[in-house]
């Protein structure tokens, strides 16, 4: 009798004779929590993740190759389609890189307008982040509230440039058109209202016991390790590393406004969440200062005629604008400096860098895009391995990736 009991798995209650097997789970490519098309192959030992292998590339469109075959102006819309929820910031990063290559300085007013736009993008990207991140972890209400504010910002984008998502509004050497008084009034009203709205989101989740349990002490990465992995943006600052491209290499009007860089201490999901919430307040502060200081003057640099298309109404009446238009779109600027430039900018996700090699023709010889989401996705195995399956979702949310940018 004793023998039979011994051979029955788990019959004596200690589970010693139970045989276990590793389970391989394929998560994605279409999974609501992967924020796009990311596929993870998880090897599970019970509920513990022993190995995590990300597969990316489902949204690869060859942006770098396309960029090599387009003029500097017509490569601008490609940058919209990298991180499609913060296209304005990508545009600003791209035009800054090209301006640096050509040695063009945008006028003051254009710089301020770009700063306003980039910070509006940061707010709209961060609120979509907190919305979906909270939704993934199980707090649905935040989603409904934060889309209210995002709509307001998108309406403002539409008022200025006619597009809500893929804006292509900045131009090399300035911006496409000036902002209206109505836009500034509405945005100023937004900045007065918005801090109250941030507190509203925080009431929903900040003290929520489930939220705290799901985020505190999860996905911890130390400062040293985070730097070694090349993390940037709030994902890095959550670990307490003070690196912000806006402070390290100030571009546009960032050296003329005051703002703080929020830092975390623990480097867990919760601290990164706190950083981003604080960044919302700082962005709000930057926008207010920019509106208050907005100087008058031109919005395009004189050298920008190399890149900006002539007004459409002149196109059909005069010969020169027609030729100008044709040359700009087929050949690009006829003279370009030979050289190479790397220019980083702080987009909502982290550091977006453009490395442009020019061989003196109107098209970039090589256009490399250093995408923050790509680097952040690579750290997923480090965050997930050894944790629970449920925390994989929290980890995907906390690194804030958009797969359009990751795959380019």
């Amino acid at each position: 009798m004793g023998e039979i009991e011994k051979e029955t798995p788990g019959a004596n209650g200690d589970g010693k004779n139970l045989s276990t097997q590793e389970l391989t789970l394929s998560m994605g490519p279409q999974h609501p929590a992967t924020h796009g098309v990311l596929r993870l192959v998880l090897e599970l030992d019970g509920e513990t993740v022993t190995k995590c292998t990300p597969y990316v590339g489902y949204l690869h469109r060859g942006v770098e190759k396309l960029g090599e075959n387009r003029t500097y102006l017509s490569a601008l819309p490609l940058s919209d389609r990298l991180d499609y929820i913060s296209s304005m910031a990508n545009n600003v990063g791209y035009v800054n890189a090209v301006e640096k290559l050509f040695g063009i300085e945008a006028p003051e007013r254009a710089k301020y307008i770009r700063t306003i736009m980039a910070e509006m993008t940061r707010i709209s990207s961060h609120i979509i982040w907190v919305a979906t991140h909270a939704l993934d972890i199980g707090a649905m209400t935040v989603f409904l509230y934060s889309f209210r504010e995002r709509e307001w910002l998108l309406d403002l984008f539409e008022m200025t440039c006619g597009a809500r998502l893929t804006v292509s509004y900045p131009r090399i050497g300035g911006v496409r058109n000036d902002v209206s008084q109505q836009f500034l009034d509405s945005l100023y009203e937004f900045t007065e209202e918005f801090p109250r709205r941030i507190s509203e989101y925080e009431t929903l989740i900040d003290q929520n016991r489930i939220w705290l349990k799901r985020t505190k002490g999860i996905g911890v990465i130390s400062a040293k390790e985070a730097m070694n992995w090349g993390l940037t943006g709030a994902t890095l600052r959550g670990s307490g590393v003070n690196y912000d491209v806006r402070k390290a290499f100030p571009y546009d009007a960032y050296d003329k406004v005051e703002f703080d860089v929020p830092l975390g201490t623990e480097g867990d999901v919760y601290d990164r969440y706190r950083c981003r919430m604080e960044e919302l307040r700082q962005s709000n502060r930057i926008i207010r200062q920019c509106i208050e200081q907005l100087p008058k003057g031109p919005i395009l640099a004189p050298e920008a005629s190399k890149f900006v298309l002539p007004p459409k109404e002149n196109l059909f009446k005069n010969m020169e604008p027609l030729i100008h238009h044709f040359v700009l779109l087929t050949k690009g600027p006829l003279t370009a400096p030979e050289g190479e430039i790397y220019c980083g900018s702080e987009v909502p996700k982290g550091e977006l860098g453009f490395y442009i090699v020019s061989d003196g023709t109107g098209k970039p010889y090589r256009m490399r895009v250093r995408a923050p989401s790509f680097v952040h996705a690579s750290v997923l195995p480090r965050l997930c391995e050894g944790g629970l399956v449920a925390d994989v979702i929290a980890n995907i949310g906390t690194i804030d990736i958009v797969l359009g940018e990751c795959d380019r």
Partner: protein
Amino acid sequence: MEPLQIAEKIKETFPDEVAAVSQFRDQVSVHLKKDRIFEICQYLHDTPELDFDYLVDVCGVDYLGKKTPRFEVVYHMYSIAQRHFIRLRAQVPEEEPVIRSVVPVWRGADWHERECFDMMGIRFEGHPDLRRILLPEDWVGHPLRKDYPVEGYSGEEDWAGYREVVEKSKKLKEFEWGR
């Protein structure tokens, strides 16, 4: 430290490796031979006054018909502690496109090197997991090479994975309603 001083320091420590130093705008590139790239990177990472703790980017550039050796692997690095920036350009020949991996120095180099392998066909020796990353594993060719046409190889067959999907959809047509 000023970028030119950093270039000088690399030149002092590795006199045979530095081919040239160039400057454009305010950025300095150090042109290197590829053989001791790992030691140079380790030196830049570990020396306290240089302390390059953050590898910004690794990418390949194809100078087909413009330069020999044909390829360059470009490293951008920044020191968060010391606040300085430098660019290394290592020359890789076409006949043997192999270079040492710097993953043991910076873990962040992992996916950048995989992408460079995928897009340029440069192999990274000592990389822990060198596979294609953005393209399917059975893809033929390396798209960011200059001799790879933008629209793909026209006139030749489509990628096998795509053909499979087309075949399958043809097969499934016979089960459609109302036929």
